[in-house]
């Protein structure tokens, strides 16, 4: 099981703050593709993915138990 968090625009778009995917393993790229297909207007090209609170690359592998988050362009400060 892979846990996924949504923030800001994505939380409003998906209507949820988090959900759990019944997967043993997938790449960051696959997670982005899944989100893009599942939520129209997701906008994966501007999106980053954090795995266990660290920025990940598209080829990085997510495993069951990992906590993921989609990170839209940040605007703190």
């Amino acid at each position: 099981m892979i846990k996924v968090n949504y923030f800001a625009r994505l939380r409003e778009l998906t209507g949820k703050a988090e959900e759990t995917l019944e997967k043993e393993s997938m790449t960051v790229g696959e997670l982005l593709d899944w989100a893009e297909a599942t939520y129209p207007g997701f906008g994966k090209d501007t999106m980053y993915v954090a795995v266990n609170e660290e920025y990940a690359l598209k080829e990085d592998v997510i495993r069951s138990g990992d906590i993921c988050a989609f990170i839209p362009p940040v605007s703190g400060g």
Partner: protein
Amino acid sequence: MKPFEIVETPIEAQKYTDYVLHAGAGAVTVFTGHVREWTHGVRTLYLAYEAYVPMAEKKLAEIGAEMEVKWPGVKVAIVHRIGELHISDIAVLIAVSSPHRKAAYEANEYAIERIKEVVPIWKKEIWEDGEEWIGGQKKYPENGVVSK
């Protein structure tokens, strides 16, 4: 207080300034970012900030560690507020002490630039006739958000 933290209540500058001050500090710079009423001719009613809190606090601490490497002798505290913020409220505060002033200025400005690059915090602007999450324009680099 923690030296690198996300808070939901008003930011009081004094406690962060007190934290960075010590007998070897000759200079302290405190930057505060405030909610501004007008941006590009549009009137802001208020802002709503959201963060991925544990990761944001971790990234703030990493920025602090980067600063200590680049400017030896600096001591740093960074706090960002989330939730609903109104005109003139402090959104972010960066306190830096240093033996000498040059490093205190440079390191402080470095911190705000890095915050805007890597810390998972999002701002929604609420105007009289609409609202929008800010930050959508920027294209993320293909090779990752690398530590500097």
